[in-house]
């Protein structure tokens, strides 16, 4: 039976990890996501399901512990916030390069540098284009509610294993720190199956190697081509989004995560004034819902990309709408830890499309 609780996004995702049969968590404290590890430690999941929780000495160590446990075929995760994610990028590139599954949560905060501890969405490029070196992508999920923080957890693991890829859950301080009602799914069993590719001691079979190295570039290119094929499959099969009031819309906002929630409120204002605005909320940031945006763009008078950043996702919106150059694509965002209000989004919308 599903259970209803009032939880922070950070707590919900931690509880969901236990319930999703996660095998191990390795992390390092950083605001605004420390509750994830704190919740796990308090819950003693090793008693509930056998899940391992270990505080690492650094983000770099944590992601490499993830690498090790993932190599064993386990469902393993880490979490951090912006500066900590930057430190994990070498490791993430290795995980992608070695075709390993894992889940990485970024509860993003304002940057660059130490920045602030307040919410931001300025790690979009890092998450979506590949902040680490080499031609890799993560599959990126962007929850917009505490409920989705919980629900994206098993989804993330399923996708990670389906594609043997790192999956990032790109959240932000708003979603991580806000409490909402959440319906928790039932405990799922931890998997006892050892995947065909996992290292676990080679009793009775050929040995297995987990590596991202090939000194022969031609072979390394093969691995790269296989990666690109995976990404193509993701683009074909894994695009997720929410359409909100798009059917009759003359204008479109595109926003994800907390921004999408706030944008919805600003759309309420617009609708009150009789302006027909819809929202396209990407749930997967990679793969990006380009096709649906391209389709919607055809009947729009203008598109506003709303992000808590100086303008990152807007590039993917622009790329998606290349066939409709006549439709203006604008960006509005506050950043450095400032969360835009519904009012200012609405005002920016009016201004950008001269609806003042």
């Amino acid at each position: 039976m599903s259970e209803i609780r009032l939880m922070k996004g950070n707590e919900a995702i931690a509880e969901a990890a236990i319930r999703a049969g996660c095998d191990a968590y390795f992390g390092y404290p950083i605001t605004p996501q420390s509750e994830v590890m704190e919740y796990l430690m308090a819950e003693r999941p090793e008693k509930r399901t056998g899940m391992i929780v270990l505080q690492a000495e650094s983000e770099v160590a944590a992601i490499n512990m993830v690498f090790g446990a993932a190599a064993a075929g386990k469902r393993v995760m880490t979490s951090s916030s912006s500066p900590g994610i930057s430190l994990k990028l070498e490791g993430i590139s290795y995980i992608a390069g070695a075709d390993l599954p894992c889940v990485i949560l970024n509860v993003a905060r304002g940057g660059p540098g130490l920045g602030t501890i307040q919410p931001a969405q300025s790690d979009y490029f890092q998450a979506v284009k590949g902040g680490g070196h080499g031609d890799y992508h993560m599959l990126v999920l962007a929850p917009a509610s505490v409920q989705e923080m919980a629900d994206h957890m098993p989804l993330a693991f399923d996708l990670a294993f389906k594609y043997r890829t790192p999956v990032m859950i790109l959240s932000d301080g708003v979603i991580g720190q806000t409490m909402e009602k959440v319906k928790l799914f039932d405990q799922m069993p931890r998997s006892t199956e050892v995947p065909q590719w996992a290292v676990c001691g080679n009793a009775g079979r050929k040995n297995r190697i987990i590596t991202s190295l090939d000194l022969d570039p031609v072979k390394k290119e093969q691995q790269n081509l296989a990666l690109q094929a995976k990404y193509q499959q993701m683009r074909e099969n894994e695009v997720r989004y929410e359409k909100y009031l798009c059917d009759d819309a003359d204008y479109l906002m595109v926003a994800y995560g907390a921004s999408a929630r706030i944008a919805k409120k600003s759309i309420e204002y617009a609708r009150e004034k009789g302006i027909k605005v819809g929202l396209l909320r990407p749930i997967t940031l990679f793969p990006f819902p380009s096709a649906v945006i391209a389709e919607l763009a055809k009947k729009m008078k203008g598109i506003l990309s709303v992000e808590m950043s100086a303008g990152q996702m807007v590039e993917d919106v622009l790329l998606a709408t290349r066939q409709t150059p006549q439709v203006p694509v604008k960006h509005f965002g506050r950043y450095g830890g400032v969360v835009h209000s519904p009012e200012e989004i609405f005002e920016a919308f009016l201004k950008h499309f001269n609806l003042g």
Partner: protein
Amino acid sequence: MTEEIIIAGFGGQGVLSMGKILAYSGIMQDMEVSWMPSYGPEMRGGTANVTVILSDKEISSPVLTRFDTAIILNQQSLDKFEQSVKPGGILLYDNNGISVKPSRTDIKIHVVEATAEAARMGSPKVFNMMVLGAYLKLRPIVTVDNVIAGLKKSLPARHHHLLDENKAALIRGMEIVA
């Protein structure tokens, strides 16, 4: 029905837990709820505030800048949030330490002497429940029983003996709000 509330005061005045109790009560009544705190490095004292939304439909933005009700526990918060109350909305404040009173005329302003009354009752810690009671008198969006049930949920079992005291404070708050 949607009620958008800001609760603000010093860290340590129980601002966040008041919000939490409200949110819990909302859940008891099958409402949608959202509780969004200001957060920061734990030790920096200063002010704390939380945005609480209770609604019978899906909640869009947990982030708000304008509120139906502001519950205010110190001067700094009063200065900061008085202008954020929607016209016709409610501003409820505890008058302890308030030197500059709210001045708006387009909102309903209420005061509760909760700090003083709680001290008088000999349990200064329940002053926030008294403020909550005052609020519920003005805006009975959740029942007292559900608040108590919500409180029970948010308190660890070893503190459940405090429930009666809290209920009394809640009811006293309803009585003394002006």
